[in-house]
Every structure is written in structure tokens, then in C-alpha cells.
């Protein structure tokens, strides 16, 4: 059988090894206990080791008989903008209030698409902010202030 090396397979395996390993390292810091009374570290240690081992197996398989051929393009702009948008919302919703946080998040997110025109982006932002406010604050009685304390009023 011919050897097919697959970078995505190796990457996936690497992610499993990394996360599994991190949990193993972390759980060594907790009490392991005995089989009769397992401590908080025992179960994560076991599962983390399994994940890391499976990850290694995926890597080895990716080196010998890979599966996925191409990773494909990555929409870097969309990734960056969407990550920023969601983080912004989490970070500022308490301080800025519901409306400003939603508006900025919506505006940032619309910029993820390369095909969007500025006017459309503004219209979508306004529409979504209004819809979000109506649904979540008016409709579902979500207790988030519309304008937050950071704005000073």
C-alpha cells in the first residue's frame, strides 16, 4: 500500500495530543486518591492520557495512511473579525450595555464577508440591534441594561 502523508490528520492528532497532555499535566496537580476514593485528579488524568494516546495514533496513521487530502483555504478575515466580535460582546456587554455592545458586535461580524458593502453593513447592524433588543430585552425580559455604566449616564 502506498504511503499517503496527510497534514490535516497530523494536525488533528497534534491537537488531541496537546489538549490531552495539558489536562494530564494539570490533573497531576490535584489529588489522585485511591481506587476506593478517587481524588479530583484521577478521572481527568485517565481520560487525558487516552486522548493523548488516540491523538498519537491519529498522527501515526496520518503519516502512513492519511485520510484528508487538503486542508483548504482559511478565511482569515472572517476568523479574525468574528473572534473579535464575540470577544467584544462578552467583554463589554456589562459595561457598555446591551445596545452598544450588540451594535458593535453586529457591525464587526458583517465585515467578515468580503462581499458586503458599507451601506448594507450599517443597515444590517441597525436592523439586528433593533431585532435583538425587541426579542431579548422587550420580549424575553432579559435583565441587561440597554445603556451601561461605562457611558456615564
Amino acid at each position, binding site marked *: 500500500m502506498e504511503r499517503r502523508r496527510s497534514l490535516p490528520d497530523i*494536525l*488533528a492528532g497534534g491537537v488531541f495530543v496537546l489538549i490531552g497532555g495539558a489536562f494530564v499535566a494539570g490533573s497531576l496537580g*490535584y*489529588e489522585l486518591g485511591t481506587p*476506593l476514593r478517587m481524588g479530583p485528579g484521577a478521572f481527568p488524568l485517565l481520560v487525558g492520557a487516552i486522548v493523548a494516546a488516540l491523538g498519537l495514533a491519529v498522527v501515526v496513521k496520518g503519516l502512513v495512511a492519511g*485520510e484528508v487530502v487538503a*486542508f483548504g483555504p482559511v478565511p482569515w478575515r472572517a476568523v479574525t473579525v468574528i473572534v473579535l466580535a464575540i470577544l467584544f460582546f462578552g467583554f463589554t456587554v456589562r459595561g457598555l450595555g446591551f445596545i452598544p455592545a450588540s451594535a458593535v458586535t453586529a457591525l464587526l461580524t458583517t465585515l467578515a*464577508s468580503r462581499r458586503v458593502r458599507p451601506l448594507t453593513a450599517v443597515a*444590517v447592524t441597525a436592523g439586528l440591534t433593533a431585532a435583538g433588543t425587541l426579542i431579548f430585552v422587550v420580549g424575553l425580559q432579559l435583565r*441587561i441594561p440597554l445603556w451601561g455604566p461605562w457611558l456615564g449616564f
Partner: protein
Amino acid sequence: MDLLDNLALGFSTALLVQNVVYCFVGVLLGTAVGVLPGIGPTATVAMLLPITFSFEPVTALIMLAGIYYGAQYGGSTTAILINLPGESSAAVTALDGHEMARQGRAGAALATAAVGSFVAGTVATVVLAVAAPPLARVALRFGPAEYFSLVLFGLIVSIALARGTALKALAMIMLGVLFGTVGQDIYTGTPRFVFGRRELYGGIDFVSVAVGMFGVAEILRNLENERARAAIVGRVSNLWPTREDRRRIVGPILRGTGLGAALGVLPGGGHVLASFTSYAVEKRISKRGQEFGHGAIEGVAGPESANNAAAQTSFIPLLTLGLPAHPVMALMVGAFIVHGITPGPNVIVDEPALFWGLIASMWIGNVLLVLLNLPLIGIWVRMLRIPYQVLFPMIILFASIGTYSLGFNAYDVYAIVFFGLLGYVLIKCGCEPAPLLLGFVLGPLLEENLRRALIISRGDASVFLTRPISAVLLVLAVAALVVAVLPAIRRRREVVFTEEE
């Protein structure tokens, strides 16, 4: 006559005005979101989940179930009209349904899907009502050792049905279990993997995991190559199937219902298997086998019925064992827990009104689905024209707001980013997100029962093999694992999945 008494209790609960209203709202919202291209039932339920948290438990669960059927039906509509299935089970419907739409018979395809779903839903609800109580009685005798083995079995069976290699699916499950350990330890209260942040003591919210893995990751996938979607959404006319059509769909609907009801009980994606099996069966026994793939109405009727029957019966393992058979059921587990109810055999004893009310509401939900969808089809068609540039900001924004509203915890929002990016990378590497979500939900159960069983047996690990039910389940789990990695069966799975592309 127990059954009738119980059903009477169920209907008296489900027919309360607020329950009918929210069932209706659920079906409506579920269909509206499910119709949106590229959003499957799992993503729909994950997004709409926070809305239900402020209601009474019964009402919330009824509404959630309504959202689920609505989303399922909405997904079929999208699959038929623009060939963009939101989930693998709807992909089968797209094969012939979209072909029918291109021949100008979209109306007949949509009506067939609605009628098939209704028949299947009715039959499967009866199956659920009959089968659940005895199973729950058996499950009540389960101790921690049995539960541990059962959960392990459920997790391993779910591999067999995931796309991609068994190895990766297994790794995804265990990764999910691992993330489930974040937060305070149940026995000692020790905070684990929280980096000293109080916000993480309660663990990672499963809504963040679901929204990240199914919502954000999917959006990033869709933004990879932006093309104008070739939507040939014409006018949908002639809703009613002709007499010839009606004659042709009876058999497929009944067979699909039977298959779906049986396979839906399987953990890990029985509904996908049910649609594929039903399609294969209809293709084989039809006298017009060559018409399949070119707009055969049997190819819509069978899989749609199977899919919907499986959607109902996948509640059986959830309500009797507390085991989610499907990512949506994993979300339901979360919803039960938010309302302070542990899903499992105790529900039927402790909350009979909830249990039977939920079952009765499934049937009501199916009635509403038919009543709603046939007249509203024009609106759904119009929703298909919403451009993606409007759609994905809406998903991101509403997902952020919804997740934040769960506990007013910004870390739940940050977790979306983490799981979105992780999910995106792993999906691109050929890993499926569904097993991770199942592992995440079931992981804490696995740990709790493992530790409890060992405490009861005084640290003797052989307890899992000396208790008969537990031993049988473990043997089955090993068998399922062997089957999943066996090359012959893997090839057959590949065949099934390439047909879907």
C-alpha cells in the same frame, strides 16, 4: 388501561392553553430558523434553547420539542427547494426532492414530506408511549456500575455512525469527556482546570460548546468560498400530490415509519441511518428503480418518514435511561438539568405530568406542523431568499446574547470563541463535532458513576464485570468498537456517505 390513563394525563397537560401556545411558537420558530440554509436542527435548537429557560419546565420542554420537529421539517424544505441540507439526514431528501423541485413539482414534494412526517410522528409517538414505561422500570434497577457501562456503551455506539474514521470519532468523544471535567469536582468540591477564575467553577456551559461547534465553526466553513447561491426558488404551486403520487407514497411512508421508529432508538445518529436505509430499501424494491435520483416521489416519502419517526423514538433512551441518542437530545439533557430535573428513569415516576405531557405534545406538535406548514409554505420560500450576509451576523449576535443570558457570565461567551475555533480546525481535519458534544454531556455522568461504583464496591474494579447487566453492556461496547474499526464495515459506511455527497 394504564396507558390510556397516562395518555389522558398527558393530553390534559399538553392541552393547557399556555402549553399549546408555546408548542405552536416552538414549531413556528423552529421551522423559521430551520429553513435558513445551512442551519440544521442541532444548530437551531442550540440557538433557540436560551429562550425556553424562563418558562415552567413542562412548557419549556414542550416548546423545545416543538422547535426540534419544526427545525427538522424546515431543514427538509431547504433541502427540497435549494438543495442545501442543514444536516446529513436531510441530505437524502435532497436527492430526489430537489430533483422534483427542478421539474416544477416542489409542491408535491413538500406536501409528501409533511404528510409522511405526520404519519410517522403519530405512529412513533404511540411506540414511545408503549415502550418507554417498561424500559424505565428496568432502568430503575440500574446501579452506578450499570450506568457507567451503559454510558460507555452509548458513547462507543455513536462512533459507528459518525462520518470519518472511527479513530478520530473516538478521540473526539474522549476530548468531549475531558472538557466535561472542567469546573468543581462533584465529590470534593475542588475546582479543576479553572485557572483561578471563579467564573469557570460551574464548568463550561454546554450551550457554548454547541453554539461554537455547530454555529461559529459552520459559519467559518461557509465563508471559505463565498459564491452567490444558485437558488432556483420558483413559485411553488400545485401543493397536492396527484392521485398517482398518493398511491405511490403509501408504501414508502409506512416502511419508512417502521424503519425509523426502530433505528431511532440507537444512540449516536439513528435518524441518519434511518433515512439512508429507507432510501436504499425503497430504491431496491421499487419497480421504477431507475427513477431514483431523478425525482422519484418514493425517495422523498420514505426517508422523510423514517427521519421523523426516528426523531420521536430517539426520545426513548433519553426519557428512560437519561442517555441522549442524538446531539439534539444532548441539548435536551442540558435543558432538563437547567430546570432541575435529571433525565432518566426517575422522570416517569417523579414527574408523570411532565413525562406524559411531553409525549402527548409530540403528537400535538406534529398536527401543528402539518397545519402550519402547508399554508405557510410561501413564507418559508421567501425566507430562503435572505442573503447569507444578513444571516450569519444574526446567528453570531443572537448566539452571543443567548449564551450570555444563560448566567450573565462573560466566560460563557468567550467559550464560544474557543469551541468555534477548535471545532473549525478539527472539522477541517476530518473530525465530526457531534461525538464531542455527546462526550461533553455524558462525561460527567461517566465520572460520577465510575467513582460511585468504586466507592460501593470498596475499590474493587471487577464490579463492572461481575454484575451481569454491566458485563453484557461492556461486552456490547467492545463489540461495537470492533465493528466500528473493522475495515469491511468501514467501506460500507463510506459507500453510504459518498452517495450523500
